[in-house]
């Protein structure tokens, strides 16, 4: 199955144990091109840890993560980014002391080493790209504002924008609508529909309405294991899922 070419990301037998506690236990997961996959599950199910493992923040104990045929488990964080994986954190993690423009500019995929950063020049191409992304994430009026003045929802968008400007083939979002108002959530759903056109997206989310709105397929994690997988309807009607999760 893993030989099939269509999978952008194939995770097989992924396990990580912290002092004997298996936070992620033998998880296998396959994500197709241009698929939006949502991972759901109760607290402590290992959702965020799976993202940490993919992006290199946590080292796996065993198992493999292949991204377009490339093994990620041996790579460093920045190498994984260069391979084409972008990750948004649960709490908006942006550069508070810099402006929105500078936040986006730093994520632009150019001048990523010491020399490149020293000689980087803000040319028209960069400015155009930053403007394009800024209007996509509803922040085109706020480019010169320091990022710490943004609202919580705007910070979430800014971080999504910082990922978009990298143009990753796999975008991982950890609870992108947490703490957002209803209208912000709606806008975020629109945004996600727009940005998923040319890439695969892996989302962790608790908000079931939001999940229904965006997900192609859903994976349910429970105690570090995959409990169920499939369309939202299929998962919702799975008795195992109802018992451990939706039934609460």
């Amino acid at each position, binding site marked *: 199955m893993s030989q099939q070419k269509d999978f952008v990301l194939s995770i097989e037998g992924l396990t990580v144990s912290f002092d004997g506690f298996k936070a992620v236990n033998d998880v296998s997961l396959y994500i197709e091109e241009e698929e939006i996959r949502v991972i759901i599950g109760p607290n402590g199910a290992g959702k965020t840890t799976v993202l940490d493992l993919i992006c290199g923040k946590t080292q796996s104990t065993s198992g493999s993560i292949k991204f377009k045929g490339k093994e990620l488990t041996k790579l460093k964080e*920045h190498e994984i980014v260069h391979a084409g994986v972008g990750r948004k954190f649960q709490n908006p993690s942006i550069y508070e002391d810099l402006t929105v423009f*500078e936040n986006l500019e730093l994520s632009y*995929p150019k001048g990523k080493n*010491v020399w490149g950063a020293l000689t*980087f020049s803000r040319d028209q191409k960069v400015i155009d790209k930053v403007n394009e992304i800024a209007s996509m994430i509803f922040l085109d009026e706020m480019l010169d504002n320091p990022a710490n003045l943004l609202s919580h929802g705007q910070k979430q968008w800014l971080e999504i924008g910082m990922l978009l400007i*990298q143009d990753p083939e796999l975008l991982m979002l950890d609870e992108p609508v947490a703490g957002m108002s209803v209208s912000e959530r709606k806008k975020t759903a629109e945004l996600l529909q727009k940005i998923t056109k040319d890439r695969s997206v892996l989302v962790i989310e608790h908000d079931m309405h939001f999940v229904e709105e965006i997900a192609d397929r859903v994976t349910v994690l429970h105690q570090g294991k995959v409990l169920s997988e499939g369309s939202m309807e299929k998962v919702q009607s799975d008795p195992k899922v109802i018992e451990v999760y939706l039934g609460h």
Partner: protein
Amino acid sequence: MLQTKLKDLAPKNDLINLAILAALLLIVLPLLFDIFRLNLIGKYLTFAFVAVGLMLSWGLGGILSLGQGIFFGIGGYAMAMFLKLEASSPENTSIQSTPGIPDFMDWNQLTELPWFWEPFHSFGFTVFAIFVLPALFAYIIGAAMFKRRVGGVYFAIITQAIAAILTILIIGQQGFTGGVNGITDLRTLLGWDIRTDSAKYILYFVNVFLLIGVMIAAQYIRKSKLGRLLVAMRDSEDRVRFSGYDVSNFKIFIFCIAGVFSSIGGAMFTLQVGFMSPSLIGIVPSIEMVIFAAVGGNLSIFGAVYGALIVNWAKTILSESYPELWLFAMGALFIAVVLAFPKGLAGLYSVHIQPWIDKKIVEIQNKKAKK
């Protein structure tokens, strides 16, 4: 959009500030003071090199090194070794049991110049060493720490420990290093007597020009994307990492730059003051250097220079009348900076004086417009 562009260039204020500082250092102070005092000011300014480096690594990058004396010492000792060898020609040292080696080696029963002193016969090598040795040393420390993601307080403590070790090593190896007295009795640089008043004037001006060069280099780094990255790393290191940057390389780079700046300062110290000793590279001087940067404002290049000048000047004044009080005064100063004005003099300036100047300028412009 235009605003972003303008802000990015924004050199107007900086240029004016630089002009004021240059006028002060190159014209006002030399006219105001005799060569004895001017030489002292030159000595203070050698610490400004360190403070500018700290402004980059600590202020921008959040990497607090409590061991910048190490690099000050590398530059200082490199220069001192060269000058000492020149002063220890066989003719000058003919009364020694082994003529042609530095006097302290002779006193310590050495009969031969140690191998690591040999290259310092060459002035070219010495200058090369002043730039490359601190970078190399900072690279080794930085790579060992930052690649393993050691940072913050641990990094500060380790740099301090290294400064302490280096001091102990120098004091212990008296025959090779001159021990606790350091390397003294330096006379000429390529045959040019550095002890004369005219030499002191020239060295003072060379020092000022080098400092301005270092400040411009610092400004360039600060305004580059690398400067913004350092600020970003301070805010959210993980985000930088997951934006595709190898964070440790940037930290190593800026730590190396800070080290090279300090080393240049150290070399100029030796030239102007005429000796180099372990008392300038240990824990206390290293912490003093951090205080210079903190008092000036660790986010301002100009603040760093004024901080070094003012604190050192205060140190001299106080030490002349109440020598035992200085350490207490310095401690109190540091506490005051942290509690009362965390952004240092530069912060006070930008909050209180800059708006006043801006207001005056607007008033003058308005008056002109009315006419």
